[in-house]
Structure formats: structure tokens, C-alpha cells
């Protein structure tokens, strides 16, 4: 097929930890976005029998309509990329990946004559092991065999996509999702040997939010992940300095008191005297080593541990600035200044607000990283927040597919190129 055909049929798929962003190049600036999850309905349920033959797994925007008993949700609702990595034999997770990919492609299959498949650019975590690439290619091969919608496919690391969408060839991309955070130096290529992964992400901020809800008398709500996430997004604050912020909060409880409404429900959560706890949520993402967190660990909140997944170590308690420094210091010394100049923060876990009136106490993620790096002697680090962080990976995928020549075949040594299934 021609280069011109390829350029008009690039299709991006960003398998994020919480959201799946997808769509063809023709969508322009923003992709479609749905929750990256699948629901396995109870096939023996009476309603399923009455309604006739049901799907094995339900994905997409209509998924909430299929949800059944609340106690079943954890076992039936599968977020395949929760931790960025899917176990090789986690068949249900791979089933969701297949279904969600198939749905995405079907949604945009054009009716035009001469359509011969999309050039799919998928994006996985920087620490995704090789078997995930193999499995994903297998899924694409199967989909193309069934529906003839994939002319070729390729897979790129998410941080590379972020760097591409920000038009920065040399940078450090800090991608923080639900399950983990990856720090990836990039100089035209991802420097794989310098990648550092943290076993900490938005899910951990959820954990401490749940503890705060329990302490505030909302223990029943602390079990519902969606509620906890919404609370976290509404009340979480990143302190400039945690000790000072706690003092401020205890002295000025009225300035941090808040009432949270859960959209679409009658739920109202009130934090009055405990308003200072809001600072713990943001701090925990950047540095969980403060003594304040020890009491939570002592009471049973899981402490982010060091884990090995595939060939990668995910460090639990390393603070974020230290992780960036360790990653950059694995690169050639000459390159290091250029890398510190462009540190791109990407992912929903960096989206923290600074409420009006609290500017002296709270900071956004960019300032937090700058402050932390400055404390370690890096006063001139350039830190930016990815613009449209939700979409930047998808945009990078589109650019990648647009630019990489159609005849460049996939190489397992280089982990790049187009994999064709025909």
C-alpha cells in the first residue's frame, strides 16, 4: 500500500491504566476515550437467560448498564492495565484487551471502497515485557483475520509517544498512571536501560484517600473505588512543604473544610476539622517517606513495596525527584543537562489543583517536582506538564504512524517498525 494511504489511515490506541484512548488520525486533536475495562456478566443469571445469548465480556460506554450486584463487581469488572502490565496467563485481561481493540476499530471502519485496513499504532507502558508485545500482535492478527481492518500494526512505549506529541526529541518523560510511575529518558529513542519504574501511582493516592474517609466516618464509602477516586480528585492537594501545610491546616481548619458531592448521587461528604488530611493525598504521590504516613502503614494501609514484574523492578518508596535523578544519571553525562532541561510530566496522576487562597501552601505537580529537584541541587531543571495529558499518548501514536515509512518492517531487536499480518 502507498505511503499516502498509510498517512490517511493511521489509528492510535493508547492502553492507559484507567482510560483507553483511540481513534483514527481523522479525528483531529482529540481521540475517543472510554474506561479501559471490561465486565464479565454472570452467564447463569436469570436476566442474562431472559435477555438471550449475552456477550462474554462487555466493554465501552454502555458497560454500566450491564453491572449487576455490587459484591460481584471486583471479580467481574476487570481493568486489564491497572498496573501497566498484564500477566501472560491472565486470560480475562487479554480478553478485555481484544474486545476493546475490536470495538475501537469497528467503530471507525469507513464505508469507502478501497479501504484495506488501518495502520494501528498502539502504546504500552515503557516497562511492558516482550510477551505483552507478542500477545498484542496476536490479538491484532486475530482481529484482522476476522474483520480485515488492520493493514499493519506497531507498538511504542507510552513515554516515547508523550515526547513525540510534545515535539521534544530529548527529554525525560515521567508518566504516572493508576498503578505505577515510569521515568523514561528519551533522546530520539527511549533509553531503555535508564528507565526507572515506581510502584506508586494514582491507586496509592486512592488508598490513602480511603483511609482518610474511614477516619472521617465514611468507612462504607471507602470500599467503592469510583467514589474514592472522585473524592481524591476533589479534595487532594499537593503541599509545597508537608510539615508547614499540616501546621497551616490545623491552625486554619475553616480554610480546608470542604463538602464533596458525588455527581449524580445524593452523597455528600463533609471534612471539617480533618481538612489538613487533604495534603497527605498529594504528598504521598511524590514522597511517601514522611513520618506522617507511618501511622497509616502501621494501621494496615499497604505500603508500596519493591516488586519485580517481568525484567523490571518497581521501586515502592523512592521519592519522585530521586527517581528522576537516578534515571538521568544512568545516561551519558553529556546528555544529562539536556535531559534535565525538558522533564515532561504526563498522566492523570499529575493533575492536581491549587485552590484559590491556598497558593502559598499548595503547588501543582510541576512546581512540586521543581522544589524537590531544587532541594537536591538541581535548581535549573525545566519541568513542564504535558498539555492535554489525557490525549498526549494518543497524539504521539498518530505522529509516529504518520511519520514512520510504511515499508519499515517490524524488528524484534529494535522493537520498532510495522508488523503486517497479510
Amino acid at each position: 500500500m502507498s505511503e499516502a494511504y498509510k498517512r490517511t489511515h493511521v489509528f492510535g490506541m493508547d492502553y492507559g491504566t484507567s482510560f483507553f484512548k483511540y481513534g483514527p488520525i481523522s479525528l483531529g486533536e482529540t481521540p475517543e476515550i472510554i474506561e479501559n475495562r471490561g465486565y464479565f456478566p454472570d452467564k447463569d443469571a436469570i436476566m442474562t437467560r431472559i435477555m438471550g445469548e449475552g456477550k462474554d465480556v462487555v466493554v465501552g460506554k454502555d458497560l454500566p448498564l450491564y453491572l449487576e450486584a455490587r459484591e460481584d463487581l471486583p471479580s467481574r469488572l476487570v481493568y486489564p492495565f491497572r498496573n501497566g502490565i498484564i500477566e501472560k496467563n491472565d486470560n480475562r485481561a487479554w480478553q478485555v484487551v481484544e474486545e476493546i481493540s475490536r470495538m475501537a476499530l469497528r467503530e471507525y471502519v469507513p464505508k469507502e471502497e478501497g479501504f484495506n485496513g488501518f495502520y494501528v499504532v498502539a502504546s504500552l507502558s515503557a516497562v511492558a515485557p516482550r510477551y505483552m508485545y507478542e500477545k498484542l500482535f496476536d490479538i491484532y492478527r486475530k482481529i484482522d483475520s476476522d474483520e480485515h481492518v488492520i493493514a499493519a500494526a506497531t507498538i511504542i512505549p507510552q513515554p516515547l509517544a508523550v515526547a513525540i506529541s510534545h515535539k521534544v526529541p530529548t527529554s525525560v518523560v515521567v508518566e504516572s498512571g493508576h498503578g505505577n510511575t515510569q521515568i523514561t529518558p528519551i533522546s530520539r529513542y527511549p533509553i531503555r536501560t535508564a528507565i526507572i519504574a515506581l510502584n506508586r501511582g494514582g491507586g496509592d493516592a486512592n488508598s490513602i484517600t480511603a483511609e482518610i474517609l474511614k477516619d472521617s466516618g465514611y468507612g462504607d464509602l471507602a470500599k467503592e473505588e469510583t467514589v474514592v477516586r472522585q473524592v481524591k480528585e476533589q479534595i487532594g492537594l499537593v503541599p509545597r512543604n508537608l510539615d508547614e501545610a499540616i501546621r497551616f491546616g490545623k491552625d486554619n481548619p475553616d480554610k480546608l473544610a470542604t463538602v464533596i458531592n458525588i455527581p449524580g448521587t445524593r452523597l455528600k461528604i463533609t471534612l471539617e476539622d480533618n481538612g489538613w488530611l487533604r495534603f497527605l493525598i498529594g504528598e504521598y504521590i511524590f514522597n511517601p517517606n514522611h513520618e506522617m504516613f507511618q501511622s497509616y502503614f502501621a494501621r494496615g494501609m499497604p505500603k508500596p513495596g519493591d516488586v519485580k514484574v517481568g525484567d523490571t523492578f518497581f521501586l515502592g518508596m523512592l521519592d519522585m525527584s530521586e527517581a528522576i535523578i537516578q534515571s538521568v544519571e544512568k545516561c551519558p553525562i553529556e546528555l544529562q543537562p539536556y535531559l534535565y532541561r525538558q522533564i515532561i510530566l504526563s498522566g492523570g496522576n499529575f493533575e492536581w489543583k491549587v485552590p484559590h487562597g491556598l497558593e502559598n501552601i499548595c503547588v501543582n505537580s510541576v512546581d512540586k517536582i521543581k522544589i524537590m529537584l531544587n532541594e537536591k541541587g538541581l535548581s535549573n531543571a525545566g519541568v513542564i506538564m504535558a498539555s492535554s495529558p489525557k490525549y498526549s499518548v494518543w497524539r504521539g501514536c498518530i505522529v509516529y504512524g504518520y511519520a514512520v515509512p510504511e515499508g519499515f518492517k517490524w524488528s524484534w531487536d529494535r522493537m520498532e517498525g510495522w508488523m503486517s499480518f497479510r
Partner: protein
Amino acid sequence: MSLSRRIIHRVEKFFLKQGFNPTGYDEELGELVLSNGRDNVLVKVIFEDDADKTLLYEELASIVEKASEYNMVYIAAPRALGESVETASFMKKGVGLILYDDYSADEKIPARTYRRTLAKQDQEVIRVQFDEKNIRRIEFLIRELSERIDSLEKAYFSLLREVREIKSLLEKRTMIIEKPLEKPPGKVEEYVESGDLPSFLRDNPWIEILSKRPEEAI
């Protein structure tokens, strides 16, 4: 023709008028058997030579024994003898009396008609035959129903498959139709030709870097 033959002929003639045809004649016993297809009739003929009342009553007693094998039994006797017999004895036994003379034969006492039940063995044979026939008929009907169900099932599954295909097509079409309403995707050719590319593609240094990947790989 002998005398006895002529007498038999006259008796036969009487029964012919009643719709009976001779099916057998035992000359030695003087017994004529006739049938109309449904009923069988036995006629014991007493010839004139040896006719007297004693004989007549003996024959009456004798023929009663055979009555169970036939639907009707008669005794044919010379008119002169028959005119003087007591009809009550015949009527009591259900035996009919035919009187003949040189010219004709006619019925003086009608015989009682017996609707004979078949012998038990025969009944069993007929029942078995009837049952077998019924079973064959039921088997045929079941086979026919089974074939009809098979063809209906085939038609049902064929329709079900078609409905599913149609639903699947409709779902795809619905998605394709709905998508442009909420967000009409632009034509990339237009972007490329007009230079109105999405912001992330415009002036992106990665485009050049990535387009040279094959050269770097060599």
C-alpha cells in the same frame, strides 16, 4: 341329474334369492354350505327316501351342535314331513326349516342369526395384526413429524443466524452513522493538502526523525 341333486338345486335356488351362494356341499352328509360374504349358512337336507319325524328330530339335535360354527343353520325337509312338525322345537333351538317339494323350496321357520365371535386364538391374531398395523401407522406419523421438526429447526436456526447477522450489521452501521453526528472526522487528505494538520503534527521535529528510521536501522 339325480333326485338328490335336484332337491339340492331347489334349496340352493331358494337361498340364491336371499343373496347366498353355495360354497360347499358334502354329498355323503347331505350338508350344503352357503355364504353371502358376511354370514355363513349350513343347510342339512333330509331326502324323501328316509324321511320321518324321528329322523327329523335327530337331525335337529345334531345340527344344533354345529350351530356354533355358522351364523345360521337350517334343515331342509320334504314338505309333507315338514308340515306336520312342531315349529316350537325349531324356534327354540334357533334352527330354520326349509320345506321343499318337486317344484320349489321355501322357508317355513326362519333361522336365528348368530353373530359369531371369533375363536380366542383368531381374536389374538387379529388383535396383534391390528396392533402392528397401528404401531406402523404411529411410527410413520412420528417419522413424518420428526422430519417436519427437523426442517422447522433448520429454518429456525437459519433465520436466527440471519437475524444475528442483520443485528450485527445494524450495530456497525449505527455506530458509523452516529459517529459523524457527534464528531465528524476530517479528511486527512484535506489536512495534508491544505497544511491544516492537527497541532501536534505541525512543525513536529519527530516527523523527520521518525521518517529516517529505516535508514538508521541499516
